[in-house]
């Protein structure tokens, strides 16, 4: 693998967690499962990066966030939390989630402060077979030290055992009707379990220079997704898997080297890549199967790994042999089907196709119908339409839904209430705040100033620098009811420039409707 390619892969992995809440290592490091956050609408959501949405039995919607697993069985009125302490869920954010009936499997990952130069560390899988009532933890699947070979069609090939959890993060899970589980772990390879995760077998995919792996193909290659030195990759790109879908005996695995199809539950494989089938990029991060009126469409969101490849969606109508690009330059994170409609959640918004994925339309900017607040992100990670016709989307800025075909939306966000620490009258978040990274909307990033009002008041917020020179008037005399509020600042001064790195002081001036007033000061560190 070239250095350039390695760099791309590292970059890609970083990107996965970029907007999730383990973008800062210290967030996950400080993972406090006792510190509940609550949802400012009604109940509690663990984190505002909603990366997975899957619908299960008993009207339960499963929600994977950057801070852990939630579900709701009452359409978002209340949320259940599945934590490391109470259940046997791995620590960290949700990296993959799969549901089939009452079987729920979640994979978690965290950023280990003791590991330098690591993207993240897999904290294992947790499986429930009773719709989330009880859970069993599964250590991050890996190999024993002596697993130095693998048998394929009676031939022995050398294999590098993957023995650690660092960089061994499960990014996708598939469950078939007979409860066979397939996982794709970036550094840990593709694995299969037929006993609900008790034991796992490595899946051998074709190496980079072969388009298939059958009884008749060459068996002279190694299975070594990684050697353990600083992301050095000695194995092939095609042994670094990222996405998986499976039904019946069919398994499709997306890797850094293409899209692999198996029709015999993962024994023989046929590979599509940019060289032989016209997919937009060899790095297939998400796969989706859409079936409507008896027609099957396969969709793959791809990333470029080398020159000539590009971002986009590739689409196949012939079971994955031939592909065409349908939505280029979009960084797609997830798909979802609703009868004939296909949804795609992407970095630049939510997309919808009504013609089987050939043409796509984006949704207009999202505004909460009740509060008038915009959604301060364009990054969508996940989307699902539930049977009651509610369209849910997981974004980098919370969980949103619409019941009326997107004419009005509700934005649900996690925010730490001030009532839990009475010595704090206001805080800013995220802090530090990066205007080019956080809560991006329309060319600006936004930090929130959180505060509480005991009665209806008029509120102004000014921002000052160390010398108490006025930097900005973030909020000018807005009227707010009793309760906890967020106001936003885009990190720009009166000249319209993003301010220099450093600490800024904000002053919240509250004029109560009953007379009298309050002033609260807070600090925000800006790091561009």
């Amino acid at each position, binding site marked *: 693998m070239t250095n350039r390619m390695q760099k791309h892969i590292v970059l890609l992995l*970083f*990107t996965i*967690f*970029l907007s999730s*809440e383990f*973008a*800062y*290592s*210290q*967030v996950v*490091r*400080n993972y*406090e499962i006792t*510190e509940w*956050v609550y949802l400012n609408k009604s109940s509690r959501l*663990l*984190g*505002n*990066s909603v990366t997975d949405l899957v619908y299960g039995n008993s009207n339960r919607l499963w929600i994977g966030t950057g801070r852990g697993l939630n579900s709701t069985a009452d359409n978002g009125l209340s949320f259940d939390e599945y934590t490391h302490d109470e259940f046997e869920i791995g620590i960290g954010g949700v990296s993959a989630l799969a549901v089939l009936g009452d079987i729920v499997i979640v994979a978690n990952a965290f950023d280990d402060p003791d590991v330098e130069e690591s993207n993240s560390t897999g904290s294992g899988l947790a499986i429930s077979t009773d719709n989330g009532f009880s859970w069993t933890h599964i250590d991050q699947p890996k190999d024993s030290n002596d697993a130095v070979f693998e048998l394929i069609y009676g031939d022995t090939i050398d294999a590098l055992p993957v023995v650690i959890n660092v960089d061994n993060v499960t990014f996708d899970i598939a469950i078939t009707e007979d409860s066979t589980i397939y996982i794709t772990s970036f550094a840990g390879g593709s694995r299969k379990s037929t006993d609900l995760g008790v034991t796992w077998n490595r899946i051998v995919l074709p190496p980079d220079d072969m388009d298939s792996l059958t009884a008749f193909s060459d068996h002279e290659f190694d299975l070594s997704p990684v050697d353990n030195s600083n992301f050095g990759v000695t194995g092939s790109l095609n042994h670094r898997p990222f996405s998986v879908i499976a039904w019946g005996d069919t398994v499709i695995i997306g890797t850094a080297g293409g899209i692999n199809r198996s029709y015999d539950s993962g024994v023989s494989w046929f590979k599509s890549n940019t060289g032989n089938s016209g997919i937009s990029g060899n790095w297939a991060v998400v796969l989706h199967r859409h079936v409507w009126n008896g027609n099957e469409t396969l969709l793959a969101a791809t990333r470029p790994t080398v020159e000539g490849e590009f971002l986009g969606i590739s689409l196949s109508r012939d079971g994955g042999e031939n592909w065409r690009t349908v939505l280029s330059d979009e960084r797609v994170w997830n798909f979802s089907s609703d009868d004939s409609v296909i949804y795609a959640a992407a970095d630049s918004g939510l997309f919808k196709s009504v013609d089987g994925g050939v043409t796509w339309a984006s949704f207009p900017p999202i505004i909460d119908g009740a509060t008038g607040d915009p959604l301060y992100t364009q990054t969508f990670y996940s989307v699902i339409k539930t049977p009651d016709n509610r369209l849910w989307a997981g974004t980098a800025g919370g969980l949103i839904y619409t019941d009326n075909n997107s004419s009005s939306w509700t934005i649900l*966000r*996690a*925010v*730490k209430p001030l009532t839990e620490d009475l010595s*704090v009258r206001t*805080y*800013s*978040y995220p*802090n*530090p705040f990066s205007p*080019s*990274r956080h809560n991006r909307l329309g060319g600006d990033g936004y930090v929130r100033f*959180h505060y509480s009002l005991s009665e209806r008041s008029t509120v102004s917020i*000014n*921002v*000052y*620098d*160390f*010398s*108490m*020179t*006025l930097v*900005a*008037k973030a909020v000018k005399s807005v009227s707010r009811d009793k309760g906890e509020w967020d106001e936003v600042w885009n990190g720009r*001064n*009166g*000249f319209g*420039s993003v*301010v*220099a*790195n*450093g*600490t800024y*002081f904000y*002053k919240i001036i509250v004029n109560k409707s009953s007379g009298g007033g309050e002033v609260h*000061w807070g*600090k*925000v*560190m800006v*790091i*561009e």
Partner: protein
Amino acid sequence: MRNALFISVMLFTPLTVIAQGEGGFAAPFLRMGLGARAISMGGAFTAVADDGFAAYYNPAGLPYLTKRHFTTTYSFLSLDRRFHYISYSQSLKPTAGLSLYWLAAGTDNIDGRDLSGNHTFDYSDASNAFGISFANRFHESIAIGITLKIITQNLDLADENLSSNDLAFDAGLMFIPVENLKLAVVIKDLNASFSWSTQDLFSLGTVSIDTIPYTLNAGASYLFDNGLTISTAALFNQSQQERMRFGIEYRRDELYSLRAGSDDGAFSFGGGVRYQVSGGVYTNIDYAFRPEVVGEGGTHLFSWEFTF
């Protein structure tokens, strides 16, 4: 008559209003003014610069020092801010002057929060300026001084540190056309910027550069025979509106001083006492109070200077 004209020119220069939201530039601690004596005179010290703060306000004042000055200052600032200064200054006979100083500023107890508002760590922000000044008197009435300073800023995020530093220059001129009248021009913080790399902090780190704006200071001061000094200074900042500063000091028999001033309309006052420690060693203790400007809380400053 000449004095009266001078006073009227200084006092009736119109105050300018601070524009809305003109802050937000790098290293604001360099533009705050310091020292109890100078702050109580509204910071109008460019054309005074006759003590241990000369290196900060105008290095061209150094050759006119008659003693060695060891100076330290402590500021009680609100909102967990720190701001300290320590310096050593002396003239170098026959015509030169030298000073070394360290200016430290910072903010503590910054409440780190994640994207959901959960507390992470308490952060801090520390800035420093290490200066060395050299000045020379080319004539009885004219001196030029320069300061070379290393400016640093460190953002301490508990488990990551982000820091940057650069070299900056100040250059000053002191002109004494007639006895007791001093005119001065200083340009401060030339050529400095902070370069930041966020590779270790963010998943997709970048490099950004924050330019530190330079400031042009022009001032005048006049010492009356009765021990009264009046001074003024105008600050022209590269990025911000000009500021006008005025100060007045009454010094009685080298025993005590009373001072008042205005920094762009913000009033301050203070005083100092001086006594002999032993032999040729004297000490000044100065105090200044600067009322709050934007409701942040007032500032108490203490300076302690030894001259010998």
